Structures are given as structure tokens and as C-alpha cells.
């Protein structure tokens, strides 16, 4: 069955069935990454506005490449060069973009809820590309696609998340997503990044435990999600970098505590020698580069689903072809 996605603001409101649909619809786009000729004309004539109010390289390039491979044009707004610096409000900026008639807008913003706010004020589909500490839905979808490809299922996995979970929208979106499939979570990091409130994420009954010892956190893990350590946050309540590395770096010795086939994911940018040992980052359990490729597939699927068909136009009199 088909689903309509008016906006993609977060994983939390989606059903497990809708998530499975999105992952299934990403499969044909995974194949396209393997074609000698990767450019489609499916969204020719459509325009995707990329409004990145917070600096981003990977996610922006991924969305831009996804749009290009579907044949869509792009409008680019980047924080560094934007008129925000001159005092324009968020709403005025996006209304200006909207006046140039894009077919959808992709927003990254440092304030949680900014994409929801824009979605309430603009008449076009909004995709959240990361907002504050709230959600990063396309990251969670590409992680889920990667896990499902390697493990064959998302059901009932033991998921360990390492690092600054407090400030991580990636962790939140991943918990929202995987909890819908009955996964159990172990959150691990310095106590200052593990507030009790994190246990309330996910639907009621979700198993979430917080531990500060990495050995305990890795035992029995099927999936290990390593987060980037934002160094600027490390000296907040005085945790020296060396101390973090000593206690929490994912090393080959520690990885052996997890299940032998445990997957290692990292949303990037990855700092080798800080949160992850290079031997783990390049090891057979690492999915880091698959995640990047799958990111393209998931974003192509979303752009296709949200702008691909003329939602408001009646069907053509008799489009006999592809009647299915």
C-alpha cells in the first residue's frame, strides 16, 4: 500500500508500517547508485530548496546529490552567506525562498522545531535535515536501511549508543525509529550526557538503560551507534579529552565485548582516534561508508515521494501505460 508524506519533520509520529514503506521505496534508489549512468529525469522541472541555517557539509551534499540524480534543480541557502546575518527573520527568509516557487524545502536549523514552524507557515512540503537537539529523520532512516540490509531485520535488536546522547538529534531519531521495532537501548557516556529524561524516549514500554561503563554497555550489543564528540562541549563541565578517549573510545578490544557480528555505525563526521579507533572504523563491522551511500538512496526516495507526483491534479484521461 502507498502512503502520502506531506512533510518529513521527524520519525516520532511515523508508524512502523510507514517506516518499512520508506525503506522499501529506498531500495530502487540503492540500485541506481550502482548504475553506470546514475542520472534520472524523474523530477525534471522540479526545484528543491536547500535551506541550511546551520553549517553542514555531508547532509547538504547528500541532499543536493539526491536532487541532482533525480533531475531536479536546486536553490541553495547557506548559513555563512545568508541574509540571516543581516537580521532577517527565519520566516522572511523562507518566504523569500518560497516566492521563487520551489517544490519542496529541506531545512537544517540549530533551533529545535524550526522545520515544524516553517511547515505551519509555508504551503509546500518540508523535510527536516536536522533541527537543534530534536530530530534528524533522514539520518535515522539511512541507519535503519543499513542495519536492515546487513541484519535482514530491525526487530528486537540490542542497540548501544555511545557518546553525547544529550545533545544528539541523531540518537533521538534513531531511538524513535528502532523503538517502533522493539529494539532495546543502552545509552553510554559520561553521566553529564545521560540525563534520566532520556529513558522516556520512544513509545511507552521501550527498554532504555543508561550506563557509564562502556564494557557493560557493549555486552550483547547487535548494533553500536557511535556519536561524534563535539569537542566544544567537552570543556563545559570539565571532562578532559584524554579522559574521554581513555574511557569511551570504541577500540577493537572493547568491540569484542559485543556480539561477534555487531554492526558499528557512525553518522559522521568521524574523528579517528577520538570516539573511534581507526581499526574499528575501517574494520569489517563498520558500516560507515554504506551509511553514506544509503543516505543518497533514502533522500532520493523522500524527494521522489514528496514531489514526484502531482498530488492535486486529476489523473490523465487514460494513461494506459504502467497501469499498475
Amino acid at each position, binding site marked *: 500500500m*502507498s502512503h502520502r508524506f506531506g512533510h518529513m519533520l521527524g520519525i516520532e509520529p511515523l508508524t512502523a508500517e510507514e517506516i518499512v514503506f520508506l525503506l522499501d521505496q529506498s531500495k530502487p534508489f540503492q540500485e541506481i547508485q550502482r548504475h*553506470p549512468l*546514475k542520472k534520472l*529525469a524523474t523530477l525534471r522541472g522540479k526545484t528543491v530548496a536547500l535551506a541550511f541555517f546551520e553549517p553542514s557539509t555531508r547532509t547538504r551534499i547528500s541532499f543536493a546529490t539526491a536532487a541532482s540524480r533525480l533531475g531536479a534543480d536546486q536553490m541553495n541557502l547557506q548559513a555563512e552567506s545568508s541574509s540571516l546575518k543581516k537580521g532577517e527573520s527565519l520566516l522572511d527568509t523562507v518566504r523569500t525562498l518560497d516566492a521563487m516557487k520551489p517544490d519542496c524545502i529541506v531545512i537544517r536549523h540549530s533551533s529545535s522545531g524550526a522545520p515544524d514552524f516553517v511547515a505551519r507557515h509555508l504551503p509546500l512540503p518540508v523535510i527536516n535535515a536536522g533541527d537543534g537537539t530534536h530530530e534528524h529523520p533522514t539520518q535515522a532512516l539511512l541507519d535503519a536501511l543499513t542495519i536492515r540490509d546487513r541484519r535482514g531485520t530491525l526487530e528486537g535488536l540490542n542497540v548501544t549508543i555511545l557518546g553525547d546522547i544529550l545533545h544528539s538529534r541523531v540518537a533521538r531519531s534513531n531511538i524513535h525509529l528502532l523503538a517502533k521495532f522493539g529494539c532495546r537501548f543502552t545509552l553510554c557516556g559520561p553521566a553529564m550526557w545521560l540525563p534520566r529524561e532520556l529513558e522516556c524516549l520512544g513509545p511507552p514500554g521501550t527498554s532504555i538503560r543508561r550506563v557509564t561503563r562502556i564494557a557493560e554497555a557493549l555486552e550483547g550489543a547487535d548494533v553500536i551507534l557511535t556519536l561524534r564528540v563535539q569537542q566544544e562541549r567537552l570543556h563545559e563541565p570539565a571532562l578532559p579529552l584524554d579522559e574521554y578517549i581513555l574511557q569511551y573510545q570504541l577500540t577493537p578490544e572493547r568491540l569484542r565485548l559485543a556480539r561477534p557480528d555487531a554492526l558499528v555505525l557512525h553518522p559522521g563526521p568521524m574523528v579517528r582516534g577520538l570516539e573511534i579507533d581507526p581499526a574499528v572504523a575501517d574494520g569489517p563491522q563498520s558500516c560507515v561508508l554504506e551509511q553514506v551511500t544509503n543516505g543518497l538512496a533514502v533522500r532520493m526516495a523522500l524527494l*521522489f515521494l514528496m514531489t514526484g507526483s*502531482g498530488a492535486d491534479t486529476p489523473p*490523465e484521461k487514460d494513461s494506459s*501505460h504502467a497501469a499498475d
Partner: protein
Amino acid sequence: MHIVEKSQLMTATEIDRTVQRLAHEIVEKSGGTANLALIGVRRRGVPLANRIALAMRGIDGVDVPVGTLDITLYRDDLSKVAAQPILQSSEIPFPVDDKDLVLVDDVLYTGRTIRAAMNGLFDLGRPKRVRLCVLIDRGHRELPVEATFIGRSVQTSDAEIIEVRLNEIDREERVVLVERVS
């Protein structure tokens, strides 16, 4: 608006005989099955391609590779369709470069599906030759596309629809002519 069945064009036996003949024709006109591959266009071209391949094994004793192609991403009317079409995988587990390909579909009508299928194929490589095999040719072309191998040609009006129903998908086996009535 509803749909009325006007007549039955083919029975299960007739479909089977036609598939056997098409397989013979393809083998004959290709001088054997070397370098040959079939590409079924989703959805009903897929079971037809598989059946033709099976029939070819009976003729030549060789397994002809079969791929499947989903043309949704290559359609030219996506911005006009109301319902979001569901994508399916294309599975072409062999290189198409220099292959002698036969596209297989159930009904040839406007020719637009085949235009889309050829776009999809050429994103995968450069086949040596592409020919088209259809169970039914119902006319009304909007593009310069013709089939090399045709099961049956049928005169139709614009209001009529040809429905090929195959066991693998529809749990029944026949071809019917239906009409939309307002």
C-alpha cells in the same frame, strides 16, 4: 463510472500456445539463443518473460537470462498522476552491454511504457540490439515504437481497455476486453 467486460480475447490455453509460438519465433529470428536475454517489464511482462524463457529451454535446452525492469522512475506523466506510484525493484543480474535483448510486456498501446523502458535500459549500459515482444498489440501509438514479436493484434477504441490476467499476479488466466462506462 464503472467497468464492463465486453468480451474474452484469449483463454488460458490460447495464452499458453501464443507464449510457445513467441518463444519459437524469437529463437528462430535470433538464430539460436546465444547472447540473448529477456527483460520483463513490470508487472505482467515479468511472468510472460519467465514463461518465454521456460519455453526456450524446451526448444534449445539453454537457460536464457531473464531480468525485470520497473519503469516508474522513467515515466513521462508522473507529474500528472494523482496517486503516488509505488516503486519496485529492477533486477537485471547480468551486464546488458553487447547483449541481444528482448523486452517483454503484456500490452503495447501508446508506446510510452516502452520509451520509458528503453531509457531505463540505456542507464545500465549499451545493448547490441533491443527488440520488443508483446502478448497483445492494441494500436493507438503515440510514439514511433513497434513490436518485433506480437502475440495477437486487436482493434480497439480509446474507451476500451485490455486486461491481461495472469495466474502469477491475478490468480486467473485470460485476456479480456473491458470498457469504461460513465
